[in-house]
């Protein structure tokens, strides 16, 4: 009704018009985003509403598209590592790892054992930081303002720790082909050890304040049910798939790096709803702490960068490789093809959030607007990663 009140006004851009073609009579077309408080950046979702019920939804991407895959083709492999920190600001080290892992596979480079442990420790810390960021932002989506402050309080501690070896707080470029840039010093190890019991003591508070809260439970229980076959059709991975009861943790199934030696569980939930995904992430934080603790005990002495590690001018040998790691949001995959030249021939990035978001259109159908926000948040979206 409103959109017809002023027919001389512009109906909308390409995507709105394209979307409106299939709109039902008398429905309201609403652009959630690209600037909208619940879309965590510049995601845009065009929704068709009947009252508050969503008839159809279509995410519109590309507002943060930077064409990393093209950048990979104009830089040498080692020079591309800083880009990986910028793909996903939530868990930059996961992307660091996926890329250097793929290059190492391509070049047949062995990584020193200590470096593997350092990689596990730092990326698991980063995973906790990412989940905390999600937790706070999700609660903000659901209208609770305080949890994000508590989450950031803890997250700051992690960032302070990660700042010691990496020097940065968000967009790390810490991993190197054949190891990591610098070793964890004593101060860093001490602070990680102090952090583990602290974080464990905080988790019950999270439970009291939020997880058990009746309002929150009513908001997320039974909302956004994702059946396993939906995960399969859309290629959802990570906590989204695990929240639907699929045991698909790459740390378990692929056992890359030293994860085989570590004792931890990859939580799954049979609830399949937003609550299931919430629970999975909360348990994952605990499990990551276990992993870090074990790694600190088991970490051998030694080098953290292999001798003769590739220089920036290093040419990757001919061939292709695919390497995937379990990121905070799911399977981070990097597919590299090299023709033996100075730069990579092709670098294909598989962003977990991209596939996770693609199922939103189907899952959100028939829900009300507030639930759509709850579902969107439960997918844990990091827009730079989705748009790449």
């Amino acid at each position, binding site marked *: 009704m409103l959109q017809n009140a002023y027919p001389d006004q512009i109906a909308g851009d390409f995507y709105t018009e394209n979307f409106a073609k299939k709109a039902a009579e008398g429905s309201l077309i609403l652009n959630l985003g690209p600037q909208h408080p619940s879309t965590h950046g510049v995601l845009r979702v065009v929704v068709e509403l009947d009252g508050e019920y969503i008839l159809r939804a279509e995410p519109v991407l590309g507002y943060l598209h930077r064409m990393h895959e093209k950048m990979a083709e104009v830089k040498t492999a080692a020079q591309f590592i800083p880009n990986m920190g910028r793909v996903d600001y939530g868990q930059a080290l996961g992307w660091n790892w996926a890329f250097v892992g793929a290059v190492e596979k391509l070049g047949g480079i062995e990584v020193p054992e200590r470096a593997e442990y350092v990689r596990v420790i730092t990326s698991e810390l980063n995973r906790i930081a990412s989940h905390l960021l999600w937790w706070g932002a999700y609660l903000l989506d659901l209208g609770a303002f305080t949890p994000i402050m508590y989450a950031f309080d803890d997250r700051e501690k992690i960032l302070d720790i990660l700042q010691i070896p990496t020097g940065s707080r968000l967009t790390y470029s810490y991993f190197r082909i054949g190891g990591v840039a610098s070793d964890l010093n004593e101060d860093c190890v001490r602070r990680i050890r102090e952090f583990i019991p602290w974080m464990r003591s905080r988790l019950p508070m999270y439970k009291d304040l939020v997880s058990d809260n009746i309002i929150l439970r009513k908001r997320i229980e039974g909302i956004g049910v994702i059946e396993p076959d939906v995960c399969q059709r859309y290629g959802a991975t990570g906590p989204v798939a695990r929240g639907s009861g699929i045991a*698909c943790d790459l740390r378990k*199934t692929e056992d890359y790096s030293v994860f085989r030696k570590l004792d931890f569980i990859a939580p799954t939930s049979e609830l399949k709803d937003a609550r299931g995904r919430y629970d999975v992430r909360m348990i994952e934080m605990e499990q990551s702490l276990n992993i870090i603790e074990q790694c600190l005990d088991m970490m051998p002495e030694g080098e953290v960068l292999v001798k003769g590690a590739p220089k920036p001018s290093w040419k990757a040998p001919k061939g292709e490789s695919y390497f995937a790691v379990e990121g905070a949001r799911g*399977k981070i995959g990097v597919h590299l093809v090299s023709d033996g030249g100075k730069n990579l021939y*092709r670098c294909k990035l598989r962003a977990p959030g991209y596939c996770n978001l693609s199922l939103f259109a189907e899952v959100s159908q028939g829900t009300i607007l507030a639930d759509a926000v709850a579902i969107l948040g439960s997918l844990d979206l990091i827009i730079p990663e989705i748009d790449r």
Partner: protein
Amino acid sequence: MDALLKGLPLTYLAACDYRKTGKNWQAILPASSLVAAAQRLFKAGYFLEDIGALDCVEGYVVTYHFAPFETAGRVAIRAIAPHAKPVLPSIAHVFHGAEWHERETRDFHGVVFEGNPNLVPLLMDPDMADCFPLRKDEKARARMRDILEIGEVRFCAPGFDLMTPEAPAEAAAKPAGDAATA
């Protein structure tokens, strides 16, 4: 995998080393059997990881990576879309997530997927819909057999020699030339 793809018109099938390149199998299919293969993989519990095109001398080599959820493994299904008319059938009705991957491939390489329900630009600006950033110059293109893993060949359609390594003598004669074209 042999059993899974049995009866489909295949072009090329090879077992690969998972430790080395991250995939167990690769298959090159004619465009016509792509959908059937996707359906079989779907039934076998695989999910679609990604779709990525590769601009080679022979055409756009579109690679579909499939992986199972709860075990390690990866299958690369490839189809070649010729430069002149890069058209492939869409598998978006089998794997719904493929819709976005196909739209992305269209954005980057200009490969058109017939049957995709909504083939409009996804990551690129609609105003730049016919600017394909990842297409390569004629000179910069490499040949498939040079850059893709050959693997342990299980089946190769007669007459298909794009993945056959060149005879040693010939290869030795022009490695320098290869590097230059690359």
